[in-house]
């Protein structure tokens, strides 16, 4: 199993929640202090470098118009890590290609970064969260279609060798496409796609990409992974564990108290997301049937996960405690979901200090990481 350390690079220095309408889309940027922000960037980059030195891989992402993540341009952060890290593979998870206006530019950015880090890049594609329909101004009902058209175009950019091609699709048009540089890894870096639904897991399985799912607990994660495995099985193919990825909040301490205290800090990620309904559920983002369900249940999307640490650990949304405990929790999760090959570990959020983030990384790397091989021996190599 590979571990990937990540932070969303939040800006936690906010007034009480009732002082703003939404932490996303409309939160005034007068609340952002560049002096504080500059230090946040420096600290997070230092943590990714610490993860690299500890033998972990790193993961970066982007969000827009939000204090929960001040990386609105993931290739900028990925390129910083491409030159600052030495060994780690760098996962961009991901490029919100449904919302990007220029997929060819995404192909160029990723190819360039892959060269800058001598082929250590892994490229994720994501549809983007619903709150980003407004900032990106993309018709919500079009986003799934745009994701897959952009995907088709980007893959063609990387695979085309002979001559410029043209593309006049439903959403994107180009008259001469001829990407320089081409990726360092041939024909292209490993591809990841995120999913929260079984039909989408099936589709990703059809391509054989890594399917990644986030913070949904072992019950839902197994459904997603099973859908992927069933698709591969229908296609007459096996599913090596390295095709399946899961993201959780992870904090490993020297003591149980330290591990749990770190995890409590990470819960900021779950609790600091005040977003009004019009941004959480723009018309067309989820299917009509899901909206019928939302009216019937009074709730959009899955049931909230709560903030009880023991319950979150039980579900596999948080892995926390001593190295022994985290390894045990991971092993149990691994068995419950039928195996998986990538742990995306959100190890810093909110107000966690740089020193605490680095301690969590080091305890995981020295105490947990060497042991995951024992229960995930069947994990294959990355494609």
């Amino acid at each position, binding site marked *: 199993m590979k571990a990937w350390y990540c932070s969303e690079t939040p800006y936690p220095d906010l007034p009480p929640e009732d002082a703003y309408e939404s932490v996303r889309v409309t939160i005034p940027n007068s609340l952002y202090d560049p002096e504080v922000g500059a230090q946040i960037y420096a600290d997070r980059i230092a943590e990714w470098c610490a993860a690299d030195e500890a033998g972990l891989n790193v993961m970066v992402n982007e969000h827009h118009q939000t204090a929960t993540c001040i990386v609105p341009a993931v290739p900028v952060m990925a390129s910083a890590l491409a030159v600052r890290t030495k060994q780690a593979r760098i996962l961009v998870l991901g490029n919100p290609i449904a919302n990007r206006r220029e997929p060819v530019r995404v192909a160029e950015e990723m190819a360039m970064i892959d060269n800058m880090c001598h082929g250590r890049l892994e490229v994720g594609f994501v549809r983007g969260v619903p709150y980003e329909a407004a900032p990106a101004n993309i018709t919500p009902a079009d986003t799934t279609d745009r994701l897959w058209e952009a995907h088709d175009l980007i893959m063609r950019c990387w695979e085309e060798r002979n001559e410029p091609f043209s593309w006049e699709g439903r959403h994107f048009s180009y008259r001469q496409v001829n990407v320089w540089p081409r990726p360092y890894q041939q024909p292209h870096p490993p591809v990841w796609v995120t999913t929260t639904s079984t039909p989408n897991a099936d589709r990703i399985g059809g391509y054989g990409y890594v399917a990644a799912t986030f913070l949904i607990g072992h019950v839902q994660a197994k459904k997603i992974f099973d859908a992927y495995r069933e698709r591969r099985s229908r296609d007459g193919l096996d599913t090596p564990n390295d095709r399946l990825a899961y993201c959780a909040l992870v904090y490993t301490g020297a003591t149980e108290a330290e591990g749990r205290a770190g995890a409590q800090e990470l819960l900021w990620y779950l609790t600091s997301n005040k977003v009004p309904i019009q941004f959480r559920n723009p*018309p067309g983002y989820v299917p009509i049937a899901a909206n*019928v369900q939302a009216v*019937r249940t009074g709730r959009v999307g899955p049931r909230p996960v709560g903030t009880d640490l023991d319950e979150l650990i039980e579900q596999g949304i948080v892995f926390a405690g001593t190295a022994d405990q985290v390894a045990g929790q991971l092993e149990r999760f691994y068995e419950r979901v039928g195996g998986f090959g990538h742990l995306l570990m959100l190890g810093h959020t909110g107000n966690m200090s740089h020193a605490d983030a680095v301690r969590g990384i080091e305890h995981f790397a020295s105490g947990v990481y060497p042991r995951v091989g024992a229960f995930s021996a069947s994990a294959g190599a990355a494609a």
Partner: protein
Amino acid sequence: MDGFECVHGGDGTPLLYLHGMRSAPAQVAEALALLTARHRVIFPTIPGFGSAEAVDWVRSVDDVSYRYLEWLDAAELDRVVLVGSSIGAWLALEMATKCPANFPAVILASPLGIRTGPPDVRFYPDLFSMSPPEVDQLLWADPDAGALDLPALPDDELTAYLRDREALATYGWDPYFHTPSLVHRLSRISSPTLIVRGAADGLVAPEAVAVLQDGIPGSELVTIDGAGHFIDIEQPVRFAEVVTEFAANAIGENLAPPVGGRG
């Protein structure tokens, strides 16, 4: 015609009634009944709204207008009173600017569809960034009367309502509730044209209808009290009166109550 889902009824000069943000005929049953007393009323559902299937290539109000013009041609309807509300008025503008001769009277209630002014000034407030109570406040003279009790709706009506919402966003997200070129071809509308504005409409401001009135030669404006954006739902009697009177004058018909009509 395939994909042209509509209800219709009545006799007299044909009247094409293009729905607003809510597509269900039941929502405007009273207005429909009053109009049907004088006209052969055709009330189609825009593709993607209500129970009407979406059509893959129909992605804009401009696309819908060609579909409807094609349908009128096929039905040999070349002299039709054109009435639209909200997005339906936007569609009516698209149709009337393309084939002005086919529509002897054009009635635009709460009209969307155009835009002028500086890029950083909203021509229509951003409905999609407002909370549901804010939306109700903006769109209704009486928000309590207009708001639907969604959990109480049966599945088919709830589904149709949610499809209305999604279709509105799909046609109107970007460009926001307008066709950029439309404002530049308004002068093609040569028939008598009436613009109807609900006095409490927070979405279509007086300034917005003024732009329309300036652009359409000889167009008239009526403001209806006690109505917001959904004039045909909040003031159906007044709405039907205004429509039938204007249409009768435009096409030179006598407004004596028809036999059996509801007058």
